């Protein structure tokens, strides 16, 4: 067991691709850290550098306080679970799990005992004599986990270990992974594409984009206080809505009406190089049917009226999609997010507004509806660099803060 420290770690490939840039990350002993980001952002490369499967171009990697840049994987005492499972097809489940122990030259009795123990934890006992070809996907996944835990390494590295499973199994295995990590208390770095996994599994989440770390924090913190446009758009499902906002006479002109600004944001915008146009971000749950909002709450937001496109009733609440007119929000980050999610899933920047209203709302498709939204919960981003202007000392304070 050990902590893992990445100190300005970078990776450039011989062909000139810079896959990872100056990543600083301190992973505490026993912590469960998730690396998440769109495809090609350098997650696997980072993980492989920690594993020792890729050389580190510059920077320092320390495991348990010791510099390991030049150590071979076998000398780092780290176990890895691969997306493809990478089970040895010529060996039985027992032999697969025993392989690291045999290489460590343990005696046969200890090996058997450790394998049996791990097999019990992962419910693999009846499968020990089978070959990987005769196992289901979920079982293979568990064997891969078993091979990792059996020798009690300093840390686990997992590269999208669940992405080959079907949705239901993935949820099941997610809890298995989570429980296992808690039980063993081993430092774990987990790469995923799936933001549900990122939000539910980790103690902390690292969001990467183009080889650089965007923000590191607890899942809730990333959700509530995104440092920039990219993080705001990446975390959350359905994603945050983004609207174009023009700065006008100390307020903002948007497709949802004029938004008043508090002193703090106004002061920011008075600077000479301040942007004249902003992107307003607001999460679906910060909208409400105007009829259902009490007087007290109403004062904290503003209302608008728009035609209803689609109503999806989830029972507990309703997802209501509106069409809004006006200029679209545009920024490099938004395009990247849309490309990664597939245009259909990332409605955020289009002319569509996704809202989550109370189940009691009598909203009807095709009609117009008055909707209220919370100004304390909105985020304002500078479209040129993506910075969140409403963030103050790491906390997002909405548009009205003084």
């Amino acid at each position, binding site marked *: 067991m050990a902590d893992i420290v990445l100190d300005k770690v970078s990776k450039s490939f011989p062909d000139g691709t810079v896959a990872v840039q100056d990543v600083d990350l301190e992973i505490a002993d026993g912590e469960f850290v998730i690396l998440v980001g769109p495809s090609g952002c350098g997650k696997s490369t980072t993980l492989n550098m920690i*594993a*020792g*499967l890729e050389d580190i171009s510059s920077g320092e990697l320390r495991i348990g306080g010791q510099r390991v840049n030049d150590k*071979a*994987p*076998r000398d780092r005492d*780290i*176990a*890895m679970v*691969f997306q*493809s*499972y*990478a*089970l*040895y*097809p*010529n060996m039985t489940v027992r032999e697969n799990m025993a*392989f*690291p122990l045999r*290489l*460590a030259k343990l005696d046969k009795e200890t090996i058997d005992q450790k394998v049996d123990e791990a097999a019990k934890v992962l419910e693999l006992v009846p499968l020990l004599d089978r*070959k*990987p*070809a*005769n*196992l289901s*996907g979920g079982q*293979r996944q568990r064997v891969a986990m078993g*091979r990792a835990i059996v*020798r009690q390494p300093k840390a686990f590295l997992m590269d999208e270990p669940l992405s*080959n499973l079907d949705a239901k199994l993935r949820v099941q295995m997610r809890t298995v992974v989570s429980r296992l990590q808690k039980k063993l208390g081993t430092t774990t770095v987990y790469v995923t594409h799936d933001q549900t996994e990122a939000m539910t599994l980790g103690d902390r989440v690292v969001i990467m984009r183009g080889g650089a770390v965007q923000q590191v924090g607890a899942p809730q913190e990333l959700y509530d206080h995104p440092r920039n446009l990219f993080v705001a758009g990446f975390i959350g499902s359905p994603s945050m809505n983004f609207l174009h906002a023009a700065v006008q006479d100390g307020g903002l002109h948007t497709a949802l009406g004029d938004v008043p600004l508090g002193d703090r944001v106004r002061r920011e915008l008075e600077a000479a190089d301040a942007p004249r146009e902003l992107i307003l971000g607001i999460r679906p749950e910060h909208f409400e049917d105007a009829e259902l909002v009490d007087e007290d709450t109403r004062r904290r937001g503003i209302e608008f009226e728009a035609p209803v496109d689609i109503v999806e009733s989830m029972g507990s609440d309703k997802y209501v999609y509106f069409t809004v007119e006006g200029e679209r929000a545009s920024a490099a980050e938004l395009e990247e997010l849309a490309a990664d999610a597939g245009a259909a899933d990332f409605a955020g920047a289009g002319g569509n507004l996704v809202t989550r209203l109370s189940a009691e709302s009598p909203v009807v498709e095709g009609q117009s509806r008055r909707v209220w939204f919370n100004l304390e919960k909105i985020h304002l981003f500078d479209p040129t660099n993506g910075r969140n202007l409403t963030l103050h000392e790491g906390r997002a304070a909405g548009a009205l803060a003084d």
Partner: protein
Amino acid sequence: MAVETTTRAKLRWGLLDVLVIVFAMVPVLWIASLSFKTPATLTDGKFIPREWTLDNYRTIFETDQFVRALVNSIGIALIATLVAVVLGAMAAYAISRLDFPGKRLLVGVSLLIAMFPQVSLVSPLFEIERQLKIFDTWPGLILPYITFALPLAIYTLSAFFKQIPWDLEKAAKMDGATQGQAFRRVIAPLAAPGLFTTAILVFIFCWNDFLFAISLTSTERSRTVPAALSFFTGASQFEDPTGAICAAAVVITVPIILFVLFFQRRIVSGLTSGAVKG
């Protein structure tokens, strides 16, 4: 109607197959038939011998010449095959897995060797081997065989290695294996079908070679069967050796058939299934 056409099609294909097999087998069967004929009926032109005899076989095993050549052939072919497959496996592994300077040059040179006309190398090799004092020895044949078998071995093997998921090797390294251990304990067992296929091809090449065998040997010490056959005289100087040569030809195909059958059973496809989720 449909059934009729399929039986018809089957018949047609069957006939075609038989035709091809007969066409290919006639010379072989002819030699086999000659080997069972007596000297008197040897030239009667009948496909099926009128008088069956095993005399020819007795003759060749009584002459020291043939037995000695057989031992040479087996020994030389086996050693050359073993060395070529081991070296080829290591080279192919490096080519398919590692990025090292001069990799393309290596591949190019091995291709060049395969393309080089062997006839043009015979006299230089003859001179070199005489200088090195390995002319008319086992190493004198084993070395050129390895040289010419290696490109073949490297090509077939690197194709097999490329099919093995790279993740397996990474996994082995993470599990604490050195590069050598990863190769021996994980990659090589999975590449076994490739190793056997290559072994068969190389063995056949060495076994059947006539050119080097005839030009790089001068005595029974290292003459292999194909070369020895051309020096065959039969039981006595004055006898027509045709029957004996045919018997010898039949005999030398037996080891190769055994060799192929033995290894073919090991070439089971789908050995890597279950390694990675496709």
